């Protein structure tokens, strides 16, 4: 019973977490690309990184929090345009390779020591450099608050304030996507995913709509990246290929091309990871799997889970199989 309560407490903790919300936001951006428009963007973590750098460097140079947010978002728009303008006319997998390569370039450049006076090199920009600008906006006093079993600071660090902001932003983004997808633009986007040529023959500017989708999803990704770094630090390596892969896992788990799929997927993903670790470390003897092998085993399960998910339930949990024919 003890074990079960602690497991459930862990779950609740993870559901509340700002990281979950930040990831869910980035996944929603990816969902716009991949789920709704059919654009295979394997560089979503690059958008997150750009958002993080935009915010942190602006604040570091004295620009203030809101200017930082603006810079991060504008940088993401530019990045999306640079990627999208030339590639969106080509076949789908070219975009895939270009986005992964571009995200990798951002990561490598961010890692490099030559820009370390701004980016901090591989060590990154520590949270204390820019998080102050955010916590200063908090209306709460600087103390701990316990709600149920959860005890967090109100203002600083990974706080209730950050959690509230993250979930409010998430709600806004979900609402935005929901409205967008009910609009004519949303129908066009989905039409492009289903049959590009048909949309073209209907007189739609497919290229422009794809580009709009890429920019919008990228900007949402950057917003997720900013919220993500607000509880940690900006390190290029932390937003690399693996993160993009995780975003895909979350998206496909919850259901691509659904409004709530990304949120559900992100929450479930973290719950599965935590639950797996908890259960394995509780019930598997150390001779069979030592301390270090448990999380590694978790990753193997995630990888295989991603494969099985795509093969056997490509629509995810919330998706509609009929609607979903992403690819080709």
């Amino acid at each position, binding site marked *: 019973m003890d074990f079960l309560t602690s497991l459930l407490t862990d779950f609740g903790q993870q559901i509340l977490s700002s990281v979950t919300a930040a990831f869910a936001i980035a996944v929603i951006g990816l969902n716009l690309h991949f789920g709704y428009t059919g654009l295979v963007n394997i560089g979503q973590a690059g958008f997150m990184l750009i958002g993080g750098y935009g915010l942190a460097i602006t604040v570091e140079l004295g620009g203030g929090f809101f200017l930082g947010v603006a810079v991060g978002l504008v940088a993401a728009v530019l990045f999306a345009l640079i990627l999208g303008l030339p590639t969106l006319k080509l076949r789908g997998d070219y975009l895939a390779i270009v986005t992964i390569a571009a995200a990798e370039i951002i990561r490598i450049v961010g890692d490099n020591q030559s820009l370390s006076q701004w980016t901090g090199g591989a060590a990154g920009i520590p949270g204390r450099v820019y998080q102050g600008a955010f916590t200063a906006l908090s209306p709460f006093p600087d103390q701990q608050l316990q709600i149920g079993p959860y005890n967090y600071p109100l203002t600083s660090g990974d706080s209730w304030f950050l959690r509230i902001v993250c979930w409010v932003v998430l709600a806004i983004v979900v609402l935005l996507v929901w409205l967008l997808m009910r609009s004519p633009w949303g129908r066009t986007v989905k039409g492009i995913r289903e049959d590009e040529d048909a949309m073209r023959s209907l007189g739609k500017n497919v290229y422009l709509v794809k580009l709009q989708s890429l920019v919008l999803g990228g900007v949402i990704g950057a917003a997720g990246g900013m919220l993500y770094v607000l509880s940690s630090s900006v390190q290029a390596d932390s937003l690399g290929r693996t993160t993009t892969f995780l975003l895909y896992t979350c998206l496909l788990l919850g259901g691509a091309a659904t409004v709530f799929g990304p949120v559900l997927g992100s929450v479930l993903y973290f719950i599965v990871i935590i639950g797996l670790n908890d259960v394995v470390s509780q019930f598997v003897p150390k001779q069979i799997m*030592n301390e270090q092998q448990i999380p590694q085993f978790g990753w193997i399960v995630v990888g295989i889970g991603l494969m099985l998910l795509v093969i056997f339930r490509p629509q995810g949990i919330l998706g509609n199989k009929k609607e979903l024919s992403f690819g080709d």
Partner: protein
Amino acid sequence: MPAHPRRGRLATVWAIGAATAVALAACSSPSGSGSSPSASSSSSSSTSAAPAPAPSTKIAAAAACPSGSDPKTTFKLGTFLPLTGSLAFLAPAAIGGSGLALQDINAAGGVNGQKACSISVDSSDADNPTIGSTNVKKLLQARVSAILGAESSSVTESVLPTVSASNTVMFSPANTDDALSGASKWYFRDAAPNKAEGDALGKQIVADGNSKVAILVFNDAYGTNLRDSTQAAIEANGGTVVYGAKGKNQEFSSKETNFSSEVQAALAAKPDAVVIIAFDQTTQIVPALVSAGFKMPKAYFVDGNLNDYTGKLPANTLNGAQGTAQGVNPNTELRKKIQAWYSNAGGGTITSFGYGAESYDATTLLALAAVKGGDSSSATIQANLLAVSGANGGTVCKSYKECVGLLKQKKAIHYEGLAGIGPLNDKHDPSTGYVSVYRYKGNNPTEFVNAVKGGA
């Protein structure tokens, strides 16, 4: 191996420890054992018979914490070590060091009369940030008395805001980034900051008659930091750094797998000596250096890669090469102990012993702070850590048992750790550490050359 004054005493401490060591059962009470039947790896029989000391030949894995135990009364150590990812090869030594310390603590009667226990989570590396941030919250939610970790300075940077906002002590056995000095009132470390080691290493290099030095350094907070301090020491003593100097952008990526161009560029500068500041990449750098005709006795290693390369490199490749490591020659005895503990806990052979002694010391210091303050809450530990490390002076003691004895007599203590770190200073860094210089015999850095006082 030339004897060192400290080793004899160390061996005695160990001998006493070994003689008195009794097996630990899981620290859960017998009634709780039903819910956690596999918490102990030793045997199921010893778990069910918790109060009875098991045969002394058996040692158990780190005692897992039963859920719901009160952090004020039970010393709950949360270990936050890189179980996966690019630093995972460093984890076994730290797991072993802290596990061994907990075993010694419990053998000496636990903390404030209660068995100490631990909760282990994965910190992973900077590439997988969600793991660390998720897992550290698990520890905070479990209200651990203190967190031992992280190994990577980058990971510490990213979770520290959360940890310190939750008023929890975070004690790193391995962070060496100078930027973390005084980062938070909740943050402590006992790995000597790179400054001490770099200073000792730089002086050693120049004293050996090398004036032009190439530094092969990987792009990571640990690497560039240690490089900066080594370079400063070399230049202050009349040498020059001809490759890999600060601001030259000659660092290699920590994920690099092909070192041919780095090695060629470094040797093109005609260095007298080469310093390799890297972790596991060293296995690949050395062959590249030797292939290019470099004589390995002129190579210098650092604590991150001063490992036994037997079986990984041809016999005697490294003969004569030197390297520095924090602490005073914690070599063989402690390594054997840690290895024995780790094997018993289901682990394999430990390849890198870096930060094993520091983990042992960190765990012991945290427990001592809890004893001194009378309870195991994080706030109490935070308030007493500096004192037990000897920051205000006090009687020197060398083991948990000895120190607790002194504390019971209300004496001020100075726990002198196995890593030889000296008291923690007001920035929560080790004030004077020792840095040892070793020379490779064959492929094993066994010849103790010198131990110099760091903190210069």
